């Protein structure tokens, strides 16, 4: 018997799937962060919660944060302070809507996929500004302005390098982009693909405010920047959860735009037998591992050096890339 669902029921299923996938992905990536960093640093990381290699660490952490006192500073702008975590948290979930996990496995194949994605991921910047400003804390204030400068500066290279991919595919839909890509993915077309990938990855790390671009939340300088005054679950939903969830989302986007998404890594018959979901997850894991690997490897840049890096290196490079891509499309 064929099951016929109304639009509303389809919507509900989609929402349910997203709400199940996002926390799971976050927990797995968060656990991976603990473990990868630990092993790079010659230690074991969490070993006890849950029994096997501390798999339940993050659940235990979550429970701990749940029981923490919810503190709102007296001088804080209470409404803005409580609203800010939602503005950071909700866009994070919305990113997952357009990521093609397989050729047909996608919540919403928008015609303007990339456009939607880049637009929605910038919304959280407003949330960060609100959080920092309403906290009435000087360290938050410094962090807020660092975040504002950084998020604006690094939107551009992301947009421009994504534009390169969109130009090559001739479409803004993420599924069409994956289909239009040619093997070997990141080095195709020669040079352009690889440079675009590097620009995208470094800009992504800055956008995620992860080391070495984590000045807005630099722990040794300004505590946790805009989120200094947040505690308990508010801290989780304003800082920790969105950071990890965004990392997975942007990793997935990187894998989709540059690594061929759900398609096999080589045009070789037997590899086609492996489902696209597996390829997609492998490639996303690779991207996430890249982010995790960079974190314990590098010291932190300074804010002005970061701006220089964005405006003097990344943005001119990506503009030159667009030019080169145009020439490639026209003449090759």
């Amino acid at each position: 018997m064929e099951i016929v669902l109304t639009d509303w029921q389809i919507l509900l299923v989609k929402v349910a799937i997203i709400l199940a996938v996002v926390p799971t992905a976050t927990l797995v990536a968060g656990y991976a962060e603990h473990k990868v960093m630990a092993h790079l640093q010659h230690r074991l990381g969490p070993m006890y919660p849950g029994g096997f290699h501390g798999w339940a660490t993050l659940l235990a952490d979550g429970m701990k944060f749940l029981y923490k006192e919810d503190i709102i500073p007296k001088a804080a702008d209470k409404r803005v302070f409580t609203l800010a975590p939602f503005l950071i948290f909700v866009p994070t979930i919305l990113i997952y809507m357009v990521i093609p996990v397989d050729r047909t496995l996608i919540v919403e194949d928008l015609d303007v996929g990339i456009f939607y994605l880049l637009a929605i991921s910038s919304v959280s910047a407003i949330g960060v500004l609100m959080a920092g400003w309403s906290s009435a804390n000087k360290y938050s204030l410094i962090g807020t302005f660092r975040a504002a400068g950084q998020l604006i500066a690094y939107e551009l290279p992301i947009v421009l390098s994504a534009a390169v991919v969109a130009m090559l595919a001739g479409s803004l839909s993420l599924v069409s982009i994956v289909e239009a890509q040619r093997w070997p993915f990141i080095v195709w077309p020669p040079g352009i693909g690889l440079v675009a990938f590097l620009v995208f990855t470094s800009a992504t790390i800055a956008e995620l405010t992860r080391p070495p671009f984590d000045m807005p939340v630099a722990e040794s300088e300004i505590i946790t920047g805009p989120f200094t005054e947040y505690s308990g679950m508010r801290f989780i939903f304003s800082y920790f959860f969105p950071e990890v969830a965004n990392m997975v989302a942007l990793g997935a986007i990187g894998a989709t735009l540059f690594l061929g998404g759900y398609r096999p890594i080589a045009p070789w018959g037997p590899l086609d037998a492996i489902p696209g979901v597996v390829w997609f997850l492998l490639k996303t894991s690779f991207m996430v591992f890249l982010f995790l690997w960079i974190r314990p490897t590098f010291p932190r840049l300074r804010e002005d050096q970061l701006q220089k890096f964005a405006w003097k290196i990344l943005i001119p490079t990506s503009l030159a890339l667009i030019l080169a891509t145009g020439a490639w499309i026209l003449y090759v």
Partner: protein
Amino acid sequence: MPTTDKHVRDASEVAHEAEILHTGGTRERFGTEEMILNVGPQHPATHGVFRLLATIDGEVLVHADPVIGYMHRGYEKLVEQRDYRQITNLVSRMDWLSGINNEFPLALAIERLMEIEVPPRAQYMRVVLVEMNRIINHLMFFASFGAELGAITPTFYAFREREAIQYTLESATGGRMHFGYFRPGGLKEDVPRGFFEGALRGVRQVITRLPDYEDLLVGNEIFKQRTIGVGVLDKEVAYNYGVSGPIARGSNITFDVRKDEPYSSYDHFDFDVPFGTSGDCFDRFWVLVHEVVESAKIVEQAIEGMPAGPIVGKVPRVIQAPKGETYVRTENSLGELGMYLISDGDKRPYRLKIRTPSYNNVSALSHVLRGTFVSDMIAILGSFFFVLGDIDR
């Protein structure tokens, strides 16, 4: 707020310069003003209860005043109530990262007043212990400086290397931070079996692995950008503030008490004094890292040439220094540690004035911090290698 008229005037002048330098005159256009930022006493980068009262203009530090005294424990008064053997354990707690180093000048001062002969084995032994302590102290700052710049991994590597040496020291003294092993006239007792092997193993491990860590941190491009030319401490300023130790040597002051005024048996050993030329954060850190290697060389030489014999000289049962006074200085891990001991012939000292390195070193901070960025402030604080207990005593 302890801001005097002088400070305000200073601040506005410097602010004006800083503004022209960094903002291109935003203050006139937007009507911005300075903000007082209280860094510490509880702040991750201050290693304890150090406080910095900073006036910032955007991210630029217009003025910064170190505020100390949160950990004053009155050591100089406490020692007046205790006999000479008890003081050893007290001074061991001043600079908690180099406990055994602190005991050295005290023992030397008492020995000089009482004219006690220290047997050669004790002399060599003391050098071994002190240099091992210097290595673990320097590795600690290697770790913390990296962490302050956002590189978290060197911390764990440095602690792994520390542990071997720390364990060996523990096997001899029974302590990990507060050793209390020196006695007037020598040491508490001879070292246990296996001490020398453990010490050599630990020290050689540091020598073989340090180049890797250096590449990881010092060779990193971001690290260079964050430290070269940042927080320059001029030679003149360093002299004027009485800065000593690795920080002074970073500023091209090639003075090392161990080399220039050898005490104990330091003149028996062959070692270099690394020094930098520009006095920036990078040079200070570079000196610190290379001192580890030199200390390791001293430990190896001392253990190879270790004489046999007693570990304590002829010391009377009741230590009672004759009337007189003396000043002894040694090269502590972080600089020159001086002790001025006055005795009135009692079992207890009449007065013990302690000159600690960190106190003088941080006094130069205010000068160096002016006009830097908030991020640089953290790098500079980290590169001044201070221990709170050493500042406040």
